């Protein structure tokens, strides 16, 4: 048994958790989320670089919430989303134990969010090299080129809403796309409607997205949708100085204001 498995078994045995959300092996060398409710099942648990999925999204599921004490295996992105969700008062009804594995391969267990916050702040992740490169490329394009780039991307969108489904910050019980009075976003997948959907998504996540990049990674047609919110986060940090998923009390940049906020374009 690995140290992780030992630790989780111990948590089950001493009654700290009654459900563990972690990863297990899947085909094509991938990791699939697994849900364990007994110490005897801990041998499935793995933690590899392939464990990219953001498990905090499951904390919104009614079936999961039924379990009273939840353990969650968290990579750094998941930790950040837990922090951001806490700052948005979304996790107050859940008794959770957060488990992570640091760079030295040590299993860490956090029983409260202050410790998670402390760990996140000490290990705050940078944008990946790939994302940095893509953002740079896009920002160096002319406006028309960027329009061309995104129109092509959005033309491919099929509105499967996987980007929404995997996002831990998309927790609304009823989404604007499901509203048909008025019909804000067309149900059919054509480019303008797709563009409006992604604009809306990016706006609703601006200043809340924690850059886990899941939406872009899992898009079945390969649209790098995460770049939209990643860029928004850069802008928000520059303009208003707030970081997402950094502090449990930070709130949400667009939910607040400062009288001295600066801009150049309002005449």
């Amino acid at each position: 048994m690995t140290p992780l498995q030992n630790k989780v078994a111990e948590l089950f045995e001493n009654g700290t958790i009654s459900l563990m959300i972690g990863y297990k092996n899947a085909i094509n060398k991938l990791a699939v989320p697994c849900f364990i409710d007994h110490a005897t099942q801990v041998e499935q648990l793995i933690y590899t670089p392939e464990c990219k999925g953001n498990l905090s999204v499951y904390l919104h599921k009614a079936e999961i919430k039924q379990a009273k004490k939840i353990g969650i295996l968290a990579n750094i992105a998941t930790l950040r989303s837990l922090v951001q969700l806490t700052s948005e008062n979304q996790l107050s009804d859940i008794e959770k134990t957060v488990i992570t594995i640091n760079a030295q391969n040590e299993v860490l267990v956090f029983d409260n969010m202050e410790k998670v916050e402390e760990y996140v702040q000490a290990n705050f992740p940078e944008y990946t090299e790939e994302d940095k490169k893509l953002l740079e490329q896009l920002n160096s394009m002319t406006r028309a080129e960027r329009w061309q780039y995104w129109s092509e991307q959005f033309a491919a969108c099929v509105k499967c809403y996987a980007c929404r489904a995997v996002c831990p910050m998309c927790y609304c019980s009823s989404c604007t796309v499901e509203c048909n009075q008025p019909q804000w976003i067309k149900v059919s997948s054509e480019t303008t409607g797709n563009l409006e959907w992604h604009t809306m998504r990016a706006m609703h996540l601006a200043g809340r997205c924690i850059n886990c990049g899941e939406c872009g990674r899992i898009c079945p047609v390969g649209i790098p949708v995460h770049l939209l919110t990643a860029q928004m986060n850069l802008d928000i940090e520059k303009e208003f100085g707030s970081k997402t998923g950094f502090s449990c009390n930070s709130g949400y940049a667009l939910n607040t204001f400062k009288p001295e906020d600066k801009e150049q374009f309002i005449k």
Partner: protein
Amino acid sequence: MSEQFEPKIVAFVCNWCTYAGADLAGTSRTKYATNVSIIRFPCTGRIDFMLLMKAFENGADGIIVSGCHPNDCHYTSGNFHARRRWIVFRSLLDFMGFDTDRITFSWVSAAEGAKWAGLVDETTQRIREKGAFTDFKKLDCSTFEKISHDAITE
């Protein structure tokens, strides 16, 4: 004489300042461009970005968004919230390659009838020079052509 392009401008304004300012422009008999259709909101804080998207989708060539000057909001802070949202929205549109020059953001108080008239004139002229907004229409043509004639996956 060649027909001059007359843009359709939609103005999203707050009830307390800009709408009153526009009213003042009217009662003062100030002459300004007739291209603008005004939509009145309780506050700039209520002007959702989706409304702007929908205006473009439904044929607007340009948009004016305007409300009370900072610190003058009837509801104390609606325009401060709106300002943050506009900053983010504008930079998102820019990142997506949308022509942000088609949207004019402004503060116009109830006393600034002349400023309002000038703003509409200036915006109309700018959009007139840019020509009609066709970016959305072109997108739809391309997809619908694809969908109904080429029947391809992407």
